[in-house]
Every structure is written in structure tokens, then in C-alpha cells.
């Protein structure tokens, strides 16, 4: 965790230095070149620290010029690779959000195997760019790109008319989620968002009684993010067809129960054929 911070700060200073450098010597340059420079720095960083491939980078100095060209982890949209990163992330990536303020202490450290799994239309900011969405007090129909979203989560009794898109999606920063205290939450840290209501599940997830660990049972702990299994808009797992049942043992046959809904039993084939 401390190395994480050190790398982050060093990268931050490097970025700041480069920015100053560019402002000083090529102030007239378009913002694009600045953006490229930032990307290069990020690349350098990932080369030096291969382990933290997907460490996100976010400029603290949100210059208006730079905003368009922020180096985002999802910039490369073709990149299907699963993003793995160490937790906690840099504080800078969660503006105004005190890092990791969950109620439970003592859970084992973990890495998240999360992925910016979203609609094909992500990045959201490509459409909802810069313009603050005005929440309206009426429930609207989903339109355009959003029609295929299954909103079971908010249609359930406990959700109806209590929350809507903007309860979880940040209106001012569309590529982020937003918590109840209006803090931005990164998509790969959605457990902070889900845990606001589902605190018991969040606790179990942090300690390992809920969710799923991958790779190993000892050593570095990598767990799946909530949204790997649950669709955030309709979180209940859907019924699916099971794998086929085992055949009865040789010489045996499956017979119906005498009770209409009772379980089937295995029976001796020979005896059964004599009886029926």
C-alpha cells in the first residue's frame, strides 16, 4: 500500500513537472499535445511498475484545457484485458471521498479483479459531456441507448420511486458513480456504492464469506467485484438451466414418487419391470 502511494506521488510529480515544462515552452500548443504527453508519462509509469498495470491516473489540476484529454484507463476501448489493481487506490481518484471509509476493521487485504464492464456505449462522457444533467422529479422512460437496461433493481418494492439513475450515476462526472454523500466512486470500486444499502453483504464480501476469490486460497487475495456476478440494474442472479443429472447406477431405474411432487427414486430395474 505504501509503495502504491509512493509510485502514485512520484508519477504525480512527474506529470506536474511535464505539464509545467510544456506550459513554459509551448504554451501556444493545442491541448492535444499536453494530453499526449500525459499519456506518455502514464506509459512510462506502467513500464517501470508492471505489476500495477491498470493504475488509474487522474489529474488533480483539472484545467479546462486538459479536461478533454484526461488520461483515462478506459481510453483504449479495444483493451479487453481484465484490469487488476491493488486496493486502496490513490485518493486523487476519488475526489472529496475519504479513502476507504467502511465500518469494518480487520478484513484481509485484497486486490480487485474488476473490469469496466458496462454497456458498449461507455465512456458515458462521450454523450453526457461536461453538461450537468438536471435531475427531474418525475420518473422518465429510458430512451435511446438506454432502452435495453433491465431496471429490476429499482422496480422492486423497496426501490420504486426511491431511487433513479442519478442516485448512483454522477451527473457532473458521468464516467463515475456517485455515493449518497455525493462523493465520486470509480466503477471499479462499486462495492463502496453497493455497500451503502447492502452493508451486510459488503462486510461478508470484504471478509470473504460472500463473493468469490480467484486464483489461490493463500497468498495474495484477489476477489471479484460485485458487478462481475450481479448486474447492477437487476442484481438477482437469473435462473439458468442446470447441467444434466447423473444417470442412475447400472441395473437401476429412476421411478416417479407416489407423491405428485415428490422426488424420484432409484429402483431395481429387474424388480420394477416385473412389477409393471
Amino acid at each position: 500500500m505504501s509503495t502504491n502511494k509512493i509510485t502514485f506521488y512520484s508519477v504525480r510529480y512527474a506529470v506536474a513537472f511535464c505539464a509545467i515544462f510544456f506550459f513554459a515552452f509551448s504554451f501556444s500548443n493545442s491541448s492535444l499535445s499536453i494530453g499526449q504527453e500525459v499519456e506518455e508519462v502514464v506509459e512510462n509509469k506502467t513500464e517501470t511498475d508492471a505489476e500495477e498495470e491498470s493504475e488509474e491516473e487522474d489529474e488533480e489540476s483539472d484545467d479546462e484545457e486538459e479536461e478533454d484529454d484526461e488520461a483515462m484507463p478506459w481510453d483504449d476501448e479495444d483493451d479487453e484485458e481484465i484490469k487488476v489493481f491493488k486496493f486502496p487506490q490513490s485518493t486523487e481518484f476519488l475526489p472529496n471521498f475519504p479513502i476507504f471509509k467502511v465500518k469494518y476493521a480487520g478484513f484481509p487485504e485484497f486486490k480487485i479483479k474488476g473490469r469496466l464492464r458496462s454497456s458498449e456505449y461507455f465512456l458515458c462522457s462521450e454523450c453526457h459531456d461536461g453538461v450537468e444533467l438536471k435531475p427531474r422529479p418525475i420518473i422518465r422512460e429510458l430512451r435511446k441507448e438506454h432502452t435495453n437496461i433491465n431496471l429490476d433493481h429499482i422496480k422492486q418494492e423497496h426501490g420504486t420511486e426511491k431511487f433513479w439513475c442519478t442516485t448512483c450515476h454522477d451527473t457532473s462526472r458521468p464516467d463515475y458513480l456517485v455515493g449518497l454523500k455525493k462523493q465520486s466512486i470509480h466503477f471499479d470500486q462499486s462495492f463502496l456504492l453497493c455497500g451503502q444499502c447492502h452493508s451486510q453483504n459488503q462486510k461478508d464480501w470484504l471478509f470473504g464469506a460472500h463473493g468469490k476469490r480467484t486464483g489461490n486460497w493463500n497468498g495474495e487475495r484477489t476477489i471479484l467485484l460485485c458487478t462481475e456476478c450481479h448486474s447492477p440494474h437487476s442484481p438477482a442472479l437469473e435462473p439458468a438451466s442446470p447441467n444434466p443429472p447423473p444417470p442412475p447406477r447400472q441395473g437401476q431405474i429412476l421411478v416417479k414418487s407416489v407423491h405428485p411432487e415428490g422426488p424420484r427414486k432409484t429402483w431395481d430395474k429387474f424388480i420394477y419391470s416385473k412389477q409393471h
Partner: protein
Amino acid sequence: MSEKNNPAKTVETPENSDVSRRELFKKTAIAGTIAAAGAVSTTIAASNVESGGLSDALDEFFQKHYQEMSKEEMQKAIARLERKAKEKHGKEIHIGNTPPLEGVLFGYALNISKCKGYRKCVDACVAENNQNRDTTIQYIRVLELENESMNFEEADHYYDRETVPHTGKKYFPIQCQQCENPPCVTACPVEATWKEADGITVIDYNWCIGCRYCAAACPYWARKFNWSEPSIPEEKINPETHYLSNRPRMRGVMEKCTFCLQRTRKGKLPACLEACPTGARVFGNILDPKSEIRYVLENKKVFRLKEELNTEPKFWYYSD
């Protein structure tokens, strides 16, 4: 018996194991057999030292108990078994012999409120553990029960539904519970099955005589018998095996779940856990106070199957 419980020790210090009466008997038996077989077979045996054949057959017949083999004998036996497996299945198979890890006692917990009865674990297990595909030996049995009931008499593990979970039903997977006090071990007349230091009950398939006493003794229907010569399509064989676990078996021996010790002794997770799409399974070292399984045991309402039998399973069930 106590020294037997630590096979690693026995294997690594062959000079400590004094020549037992059984061994002496075996040696005289070898001599007797060879003498009786006469000059012809001796020459065959000599000519077949490299390529197997009669000498392999003899070696196999006189192969010692897993816990009594010295390191060299073990290597020889494994080499022979690998050779045989390749002959039979046409595929290079690696038979490992990883000893139990120090300070590790494996435990498993299963969240029955999460299990939806998809049977993904069952198929992953069959693929991992090289079970006979003809008779469909399956180590995991997913029981379907009435939602309010715990009556296993009324459970159905042959359920065949369009989609699961079916309304009003719950699902309850059972497999070997790795009892701390395993009745199957007590039942075995030839000590072909025993509990390893990491708590896994294992079987030496070459020592098992196929009497099936253990299957009768196991209260959890965990043991499966190879009634016929196992057949596995070549492309479906898992070549990464362990002597005590998923190496190719033969007709007439008992087999069962070993918590995938070929994987778990190397730090990996069991195949059933990896396959579970609902995350209902938690696996780990119950001696490690920071492990996930310990959290479950300490903070969840856990229960074990047929606790009254005093078998002390290391397989817990819990619900949210």
C-alpha cells in the same frame, strides 16, 4: 499407526523404516515366484526391464503401501504408473507426489442460500479428477430439497429441470466431508485409505482391494466405486495429477473427492470452487486465523451434516 499419519516423513527417511515382516514375506514371495516361473520367464523379465511387461507386472503386484515406500521406490512406482497411463490413455500424464503443507488443515464451507443447483461444480470436478465417463462417477451430488425441509430421505439429486432454482426448492451439494474422525478409514481392512496431515482422506488405489467396506461405512455417500475399467476420451484427460488424487484409476478400486489436493497443495483453489457461478463455496486453511474460512466459521451460523455421528467433518454449511 501414528507414524503412518505422516507419510512425508516416512517417504523422506527410508533408512528409518526397518524391514517389516510383510516386506520379508514379499521378498521371499518374489524369489518364490521367479523360481517357480522358471528360466523362461526370468529371461523375459530381464529383457523387459526397460519396456515394462512382466517386470512391471511383478513390480506392480509387489508395490508397497504408499506410506511405506522409500523415496526411490516411490519414484520408480510413479515412473511405472506414468508409463502405464501413457500406454493406456495415449497421453503424457504427470503423477505428482506433493506432500501436505506444513501447518495447513483444509476446510470447506458452502453457503446453501447461494447455491442455485446449476451443477457446474459437478462437471468441473469430473473434468479435473479424471473420473470414468462411462458410468459417470461424480464426487459431488447436488440434492434438491423442499425449501422448508431438511429431510434427506426426500432429497432428489436426479432433478432435471428446465431452469434452476425451481420455485419452492433449495439445493444442497454434498461431497466427501473430509471427516476428522473418518469411519471409512476405520472400516478399511487393509489400510488402503487414511487421513493425511492436512486433513484429507486419501486412497492408495494400488493398495485398495475393492471390498467396498468404506463405502458402506461413509455416512455421506461420498465414496464411489469403479465397477468397470474407467474410460476417458483422450482429449478430456487432465494430465496434471497426484498419486493420491486424480491419477488414472483402474477397475475395482474406490475413489472419492480429495478437495483437489493436486491443486490445493500447490495453493490453487479446488475445481468446484472455481466453477461455482454463485460464489457459494469458501475454501481455505482452518488453522490460519486470518483466512476466509475462519471468518465464516466464527461469524456465520454454520452446521455440519450428521454431526451426531461424531465424524467431525471439515465441511461446513452456512446461510446468509
